[in-house]
Each structure stands twice: as structure tokens, then as C-alpha cells.
């Protein structure tokens, strides 16, 4: 495919920005940490726990700079982009620590910068700036659109909608789409109607499977101030493969709107937040997909492959850093590992490896360092063993979120209970009876100096891998 003029301009912009950043990097060493994850993967909690640990000196034995006392302190500082809202760190901490509720699902993009003062191993006082961006996971589904034409996206989406067997089924939209003739003259009302049905279906899916809304575009779910604009009023159509769009037709109109959605929404999002990452962590909620069954697992895998293809990873030399920055370390983390006994974490990691197989191979081949871990940014449970036949059931103890259920029992959100979530299958394609229950954040004892460190699982290992080498 020949690059269009807008593609070339986009590349030129990316290079110009990379060169500008390179200059700033020499003065203030900065790590741009990309926190990637579909919605409900735990991005906000991860960022909150990470900042809380850095600012308050958390319990991070494996994170060497902090454990050996080389980090003198860390503080929040004003972020570089004035147009982006600030990540509401204080509210999220209050929500987790005081109210014991997980933060609300993220509805808009936000950003925060932390400055770490540390002493290098050779004795110089230095600072490292850490830029982190939080955003709704739904938007991530837009990234695959960057390289797709309208025709390609339409064919893929239609194929998926016809194939899927997970409720809710898109029967209404498909019936309507079948009656639209792409060669007919453009009709605004037909377009609005089709887009409405398509959007409704997406919303329904999201309500049914909050963790795994697999098809985009993401702004259809969270339109913000773009609601009702033509850029958000398009839908996939049944298109013949070997024809071109005649001008003035429904097809032509949809294609133009798709292109403007891509140019006005997706590209700035990618350019501002993902094109220049130094380090990347990919959060995947494997357990929810396991709970939902094999098809959800396949959907998750497809989504991860499509999303991760968009990122630039690979060994980073100074020439690359100057013109096309790329993430040279990428960490795949299965979040909410506290829903499992630690003896099952190896299985969880193995499944995550299966899910992100392609991305891991690609990153490894490009020279990036890759690691896969099971992680819980905030550990909401503790472990126990229930005596029984054989070795007993390795279980966890915690307070379930009100409304969660298992075994026909509903939890009220105040009493603690022990839970065995079923053995994790060795193979992700076998569903099994796995149950994933959300637990409330842990009750912390208030100490004299304020809030104690949040418990976690392997957050320190993640930090060591992501920024440990920049704090030498």
C-alpha cells in the first residue's frame, strides 16, 4: 500500500517530536512508562500503587534502589502537557485505602509526573523523571485502526460479528446492515441509524463483559465531546471485495468518516502517548477471561495481538532514540494475581505467555528485553490452606466486593471468607470451572506516620525490571 500524504506528514511529526525529546532527555533524564491494558485490566490501580510505593517508600524488597536506600525521595511534579487532566492520585489512594473500593473505571485521559531523587551507585546525586499516562482501556482498541483502511476494518468487524456466539448477539445491527446498499447515494439518516445500532450493540457488549469489549472503535463507548459528530457516525458495511467506492455513495461517506475518526482521534492519541515510550508494561486480566470461557480467551488473545502490533519495541540505540524512539523493555503482567494462591501463579504466567505469544516473540526478535509475571499491584487477599483430601485446597481469604457470587452464595461485602477459585487449567483453551471473584482492597492498620505501605505481589519485581536499570 502506498503511503498517503497524511501518513508521511504523521511520520514527519513523530520524528520532529522525537528529536525535540532527545534534546530534553540530555538535560532531564526521563522515563516514559507506557501502561497498556484493556479496560478493567487494572491500569489505574497499578499506577496508584506504584506512585504510592515510590512516594511513601513502600515495602519493595526486590526493587534494589529503594531497598538499598539509594532513593532519597520521590515527589509529584507538574506534568509536561498542560492540556491533559492530572491523574487524580490522591482521590484514588483515598478510594483504595480509606473507602476500600477500587477506583471507578477511567473515563478520560490523565497524566502525572513523578521525580525521583536518587544517588547513583558511583555516588552522584541524580534525578529521574517518570511520566505516566492513564487512559480508558477502551481507547486502546483504536490503535489497530491506525494501519487499517475502512474496507479492511469493515470486513474484519463484520466477520467477527457474524462469527461470535457470545451474548449479546448483534442481530439487530446485522439485519439493518444487510439492507444497506453501499452503492446507493449517501443518506445521512441511514448512516445515523446504522451507527446508532452499531453503537448500541457495542454498549451492550460492554455492559455484559466489562473486562472484554473486544471490538472498537473505543470512542463509540466513551464519546465525550465528540458525541454526535460525523466522525463518530459510521458503521461497518457488507462490502464487495473487488470494487472501489463510487463518490457520493454511502460507502464513500462511511469511508471518509472513518478516515477522519482515525486522523482526528486515533492519531493524536497514539502520537501523544504511545509513539515515544521508553518502557512498557502490558497489563492483562487473564483471570476474568478464564472465568468467561474459551471464546473470551480467544477474543482476548486477538485483541492483544492487534494492539501490541502497533507499538514500537526493540533495542534502543542513540540513533533510534533520536529519530524513532522505541521501548527497549516490555513487561507482560497478569494482573489480579491475588485472586489465586501463589502456588498457581506459575500456571497463570504460562497462560499469559500463551496469550501474548506473538507479541513476546516479536519483541524478543527486535532485541527488547521481555519478562512475564503474575502481578497484584494491591494485594487484597491473604493465603490459607483448607484441609481436605490430598494436599488440601490452596485458598485465599478476603472480603468479596458486594454483589459477587459463587456456588449460589451472594456476598454482602463485609464478611471475610475463604475461597478456592478452582485449579487453573494448564491450557488456556480449556475453560474449566474457573471462578474469578473481585475482592475489596485490604483493610490497613493506620500507623502513626499516616498510611502504611500497600501490600502487593511482585510490584517490586515489575519496578525493578521497568526502571531499575535507569536508577543505577
Amino acid at each position, binding site marked *: 500500500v502506498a503511503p498517503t500524504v497524511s501518513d508521511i506528514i504523521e511520520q514527519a511529526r513523530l520524528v520532529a517530536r522525537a528529536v525535540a525529546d532527545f534534546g530534553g532527555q540530555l538535560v532531564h533524564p526521563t522515563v516514559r512508562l507506557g501502561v497498556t491494558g484493556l479496560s478493567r485490566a487494572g491500569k489505574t490501580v497499578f499506577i496508584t500503587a506504584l506512585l504510592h510505593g515510590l512516594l511513601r517508600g513502600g*515495602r519493595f*524488597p*526486590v526493587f*534494589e534502589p529503594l*531497598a*538499598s536506600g539509594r532513593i532519597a525521595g520521590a515527589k509529584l511534579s507538574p506534568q509536561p502537557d498542560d492540556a491533559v487532566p492530572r491523574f487524580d492520585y490522591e482521590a484514588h489512594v483515598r478510594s483504595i485505602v480509606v473507602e476500600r473500593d477500587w477506583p471507578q473505571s477511567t473515563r478520560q485521559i490523565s497524566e502525572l509526573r513523578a521525580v525521583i531523587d536518587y544517588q547513583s551507585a558511583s555516588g552522584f546525586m541524580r534525578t529521574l523523571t517518570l511520566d505516566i499516562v492513564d487512559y480508558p482501556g477502551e481507547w486502546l482498541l483504536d490503535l489497530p485502526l491506525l494501519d487499517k483502511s475502512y474496507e479492511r476494518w469493515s470486513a474484519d468487524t463484520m466477520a467477527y460479528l457474524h462469527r461470535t456466539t457470545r451474548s449479546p448477539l448483534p442481530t439487530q445491527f446485522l439485519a439493518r446492515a444487510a439492507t444497506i446498499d453501499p452503492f446507493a447515494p449517501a443518506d445521512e439518516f441511514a448512516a445515523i441509524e446504522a451507527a446508532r445500532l452499531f453503537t448500541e450493540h457495542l454498549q451492550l457488549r460492554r455492559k455484559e463483559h466489562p473486562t472484554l469489549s473486544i471490538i472498537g472503535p473505543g470512542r463509540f463507548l466513551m464519546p465525550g465531546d465528540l458525541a454526535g459528530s460525523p466522525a463518530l457516525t459510521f458503521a461497518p458495511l457488507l462490502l464487495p471485495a473487488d470494487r472501489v467506492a463510487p463518490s457520493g455513495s454511502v460507502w464513500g461517506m462511511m469511508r471518509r468518516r472513518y478516515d477522519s475518526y482515525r486522523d482526528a482521534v486515533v492519531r493524536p492519541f497514539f502520537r501523544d502517548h504511545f509513539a515515544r515510550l521508553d518502557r512498557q508494561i502490558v497489563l492483562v486480566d487473564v483471570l476474568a477471561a478464564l472465568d468467561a470461557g474459551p471464546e473470551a480467551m480467544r477474543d482476548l488473545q486477538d485483541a492483544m495481538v492487534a494492539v501490541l502490533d502497533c507499538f514500537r519495541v526493540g533495542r534502543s540505540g542513540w540513533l533510534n532514540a533520536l529519530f524513532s524512539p522505541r521501548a527497549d523493555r516490555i513487561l507482560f503482567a497478569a494482573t489480579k494475581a491475588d485472586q489465586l494462591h*501463589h502456588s498457581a*501463579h506459575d500456571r497463570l504466567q504460562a497462560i499469559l505467555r500463551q496469550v501474548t505469544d506473538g507479541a513476546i516473540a516479536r519483541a524478543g526478535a527486535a532485541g527488547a528485553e521481555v519478562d512475564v*509475571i503474575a502481578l497484584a499491584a494491591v494485594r487484597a487477599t*491473604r*493465603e*490459607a*490452606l*483448607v*484441609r*481436605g483430601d*490430598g*494436599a*488440601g*485446597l490452596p*485458598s485465599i*481469604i478476603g472480603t468479596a466486593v458486594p454483589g459477587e457470587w*459463587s*456456588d449460589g*452464595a451472594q456476598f454482602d461485602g463485609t*464478611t*471475610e*471468607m*475463604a*475461597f*478456592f*477459585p*478452582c*485449579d487453573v*487449567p*494448564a491450557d488456556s483453551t480449556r475453560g*474449566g*470451572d*474457573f*471462578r474469578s471473584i473481585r475482592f475489596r482492597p485490604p483493610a490497613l492498620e493506620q500507623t502513626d506516620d499516616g498510611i502504611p505501605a500497600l501490600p502487593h*505481589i*511482585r510490584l*517490586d*519485581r515489575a519496578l*525493578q525490571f521497568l526502571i531499575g536499570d535507569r536508577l543505577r
Partner: protein
Amino acid sequence: MNDIPRKPAVFSVDDPRLLAAELEAAERPSFDLVTAAPDENLPAVAGARKRKIHWGRIFWSALSGLVLLALGLAVTSLIEELYARAPWLGGLGLALAVLAAVALLVVTLREIIGLGRLATVEALRHRALAVIASDDRDGGRALVGELLSLTRRIPRLARARAGIQGHRADIIDGRDLVRLAERELMSPLDLEARRLIIAASKRVSIVTAVSPRAAVDMVFVLINALGLMRRLAVLYGGRPGALGVLRLLRQVVSHLAVTGGVGLADGVVQQVIGHGLAARLSARLGEGMINGLLTARLGLLTIDLVRPLPFHELPRPSLNDLAGTLFRQAESAGEPPGRPKSG
């Protein structure tokens, strides 16, 4: 073991089958769990050697058996003779013989324990390497438990040990656990080891520089090196007896034969000569420095053998960075005795 997936299940917190508190209590000291572990692992290391008939060994064993018998016979007849002379003399002789036997037994036992501890340290190091490679969590926990019990007599590590104990309830993977243990437990010991080596090297270079005869400083270098090895082994939690130190010496020398001569020739001597030190100072002083460096090299090799964890997280001390400190000190300390010689 998990061929049939077990179903999810919910239990109330006061279910009598729940082992939450007891599990954590059992995990915290965990030494009894840990002591069972070497039985699985140690024979695997030792058993890897092939059994073969060593005629030389049989000869020496048989010969020493004979010597022991002769000794026993001589002692018995001596005591009998003493009894024949006077009963109280016989009693005294018997008491002395028993005392000697008991002392010999204790010394032998201590030697055996010392050798055993050295072997334990070596096995720990091999297991640490295996854990680092495999990232095995249970292996790492068992290893750290043994490490804690090995170092429990080292007072300066009390705080570090408490810190590690505190992290035992956390979920940390094998490799990270080994790294953590190395950083917490080994870094104070590494510093002290460095100090010991520098002190010993300094002594050797000064004595060599001022000693009147080559034979004297040869003996001094040997004794000093043996003392250094012993101190290093004790520092890292081993308690070698005379046999243990001899075994260490053998390993170190064989190690030195493989890597040492070359390493000494290229880097440091060049540095010495390049500095113009050898030209500036007398020949004796230059010799002293070479001897000091040799001692430092022996010390570094000994650390490799007696340190229960491999150098993974922390940097391995190198001869070059020791040499810098050493020369600065040796120059200032070595010049006063060197002056009358050169002048």
C-alpha cells in the same frame, strides 16, 4: 497432580478445616521444613561422581591403619609397663592416654564438621546458581532458610536476617529471593572481606620489603595466606579446621594455576611498572608488592570458594580495584622502611 480440575469452593473464615494461621506460623521459622531439603539435593551433587577403585587410596588407608595399630600397641604396652613399675604411674598414664584419645576425637569431629560446613557452603552456591537459572520459588525459599541458619552465628547480620525473615511471608520468586539474600546478607560481609584482604596484603608487602632473607618471607607469606583463608571462611559462615584450610589451599592453588598466573601477568604488574613505581622504589619493595598482590589474589579466589552465594547481584571485587587501595597504602606505609635500603 492436577489432572482433574477441582471445583471452586467457598468456606467461611471460621471453618475448622482452614489452616490460615497455622500455615503462616509454620512458614515463619521454617527451619524444620528447610533441614529436610538438603537430603534431596546433596546426594544428587555428591552422587554424580563415579565410584572407582583407587589403589593408591587403599594403600594409604591400610598403611595409616597399620600405623594406628602400632601406636595403639605401643601405648598399651607403655601403660602396662607403667603399671608394672608403680600403680599410680599406670593410672596417670591411662588418664593421659584417655585424655589424648578424647582430645583426638574432638579434634577429628571438629575437622569433619568444618569440612562438612565447607561442603555445605559449596552445595549452597551450586543450588543458588540452579535457583537463579530456574527461578524456582520453593527452591529459593529453602535456600534462603538454610542461608539464614548458616549465618545465624554472625552478629553483624542480625538486622539483615530480621529483614529477610520479615519478607518470608511475601510472595517473591526464587531468583529475586536469592538476589535479595545476597544484597542483604553478603554486602556487609563483602566489605569486611575486602578489608581483611587489604590488611593481609599490606602486611605481606611490608614484611617482604624489610625481611633479610627470601626464606623468611616465603614462610611468612604462606602462614599469612593460610590465616587469611581461615578468616575469610569464618567470616562467610564456614568454620574450617586445619584440614579444611588445607583443602581450601589446594583448591585455591589449583584455581590459581588455571587462571592466576596469566591474570597477574597482564593487568596489574603492568600497572605497577607503568606507574614507574618499580623504578622509583627499590627492588625489594617491588617484590613486596608482587607478594602482596599474590596474597590479594589468593584472598579473592578464597572468597569465590567460601561465599555461600555466587556473585550475581553485587559486583565481584576485582584485583584491580583492590590494587589501587593497596598501593596507595603500601606506598605510604612502605616508604619509610624502604628508604634506608635504597639509600
